[in-house]
């Protein structure tokens, strides 16, 4: 699945999420797939669900975390790709 920094995503309508102590557990109610997000993943999720582009999410997170831009971009696109493949996120319209 091709994911770019210009993309936005939305939460799949069958996904339930619950934040617990700074971490998040996602559940796809149709497939029964559970997915855990650590604190950094939770921050990314909370920004992604505001329908920001991945580039906009990166910009916010670069101010908050001590991480190189290319590392964050690679990690974020990998996470979003994984979540889309598990049908937890749905690729949305491009922000470009």
């Amino acid at each position, binding site marked *: 699945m091709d994911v770019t920094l210009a993309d936005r995503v939305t939460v799949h309508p*069958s996904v*339930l999420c*619950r934040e*617990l*102590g700074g*971490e998040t*557990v*996602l*559940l796809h*109610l*149709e*497939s*029964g*797939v*559970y*997915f*855990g997000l650590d604190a950094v993943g939770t921050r990314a999720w909370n920004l992604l669900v505001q329908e920001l582009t991945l580039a906009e999410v990166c910009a916010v997170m670069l101010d908050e975390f001590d991480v190189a831009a290319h590392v964050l971009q690679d990690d974020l696109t990998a996470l979003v790709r994984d979540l889309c493949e598990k049908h937890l996120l749905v690729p949305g319209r491009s922000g470009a």
Partner: protein
Amino acid sequence: MSDYDLLQFHAFCLTNTGTRLTQYARAISTRVRDGDVVLDLGTGSGLLAVLACRAGARRVYAIETSDAIRFGELLASATEFKDRIEFIQAASTQLVLPERVDAIVGDIHDTFGLQTGGLAAFFDARDRFLKPGGALVPCAIQLLVAPVEAAELYASEIDVWTRRVHDVDLSPIRPLAVNQMHAAKFDREQVLAPPCALATIDLERSNVLHAGGHAVATALRGGILHGVCGCFVTTLAESVVMGNAPGEGDTTNFAQAFFPLNTPTPVLEGDRISMAVDTYDGHVTRWRLDVARPGASPHARFDHSTFGDLPLPARTLRRNANDYRPTLTPRGVMERALLDRFDGTRSAAELETWLREHYDGLLPSERAAEAFLKATIERCG
């Protein structure tokens, strides 16, 4: 369940569930043939196993996880079929049978279709134990929903958590209650619109553990909408059904499910009430509801789930995630070391002493060591 609870529950099931057992007897007599081998899934008190023998089964594997299996053994022992029924206390999903069966019967219903995990158990039994073309009793379950007015129930189950007790505010617990599926008995006067079909589960063909759907009802009268009643109609065999819809529960006398709303909402005759209920085999259930005047946009909207507010420890939920990488807890390390000593040379008393000597930090008393050892022996020794 304690023995007392099991007795109460099975007394109810055997004597106070309307025509349920008559319907099962009818279905079994049409689906079980002379000489069949039958699996009774969740046999409980064993009555369906006896009915299968009466219909001609030459052997019945009667499976039950709970201690109620003792009731089944006692009841069957007083019949002429005691040598035909083999009671097995185990989870069916963990079981290997020596042969495939001609029919599977089972009553593992709850208020809204099957018990939690019931679909997984039923599909697994069908796929691993049933001969091709074999019979399933039941073979289909239809889920239904209806909007309900239930002021007394709402007060006792939801708004009880708005009170103050000895100057302690109970309201922090209310979100847990309103995101929980409750059991309740509704009568026909409480429904604001007749039950609508939500989904049908084809037990013969489906492999999907998700059940649910969407239904729209038109209020037949005005009132206060407190939530959704969930109920079911099960097809046991052709023309043999049972269910628990309000006012039509004479085949089961079962309670219905109640899915409450956070805010009771006034409705007028003619209002459109849109209800969506989804469940993953009863483990997690979500219910959404919109209320709209005819031709207008919804003026009230609700989205509840048992996933959102249950007081589960974070660790419990995280461990369900598919990407969770477990490591042994200190108790797990202790259990592994104990299991390594289950080699047939050490007595329970010696093992208990060893536990006390090595794990007194985890097992603070003799009683704790004894309980841990007995539980481990029961599972593995």
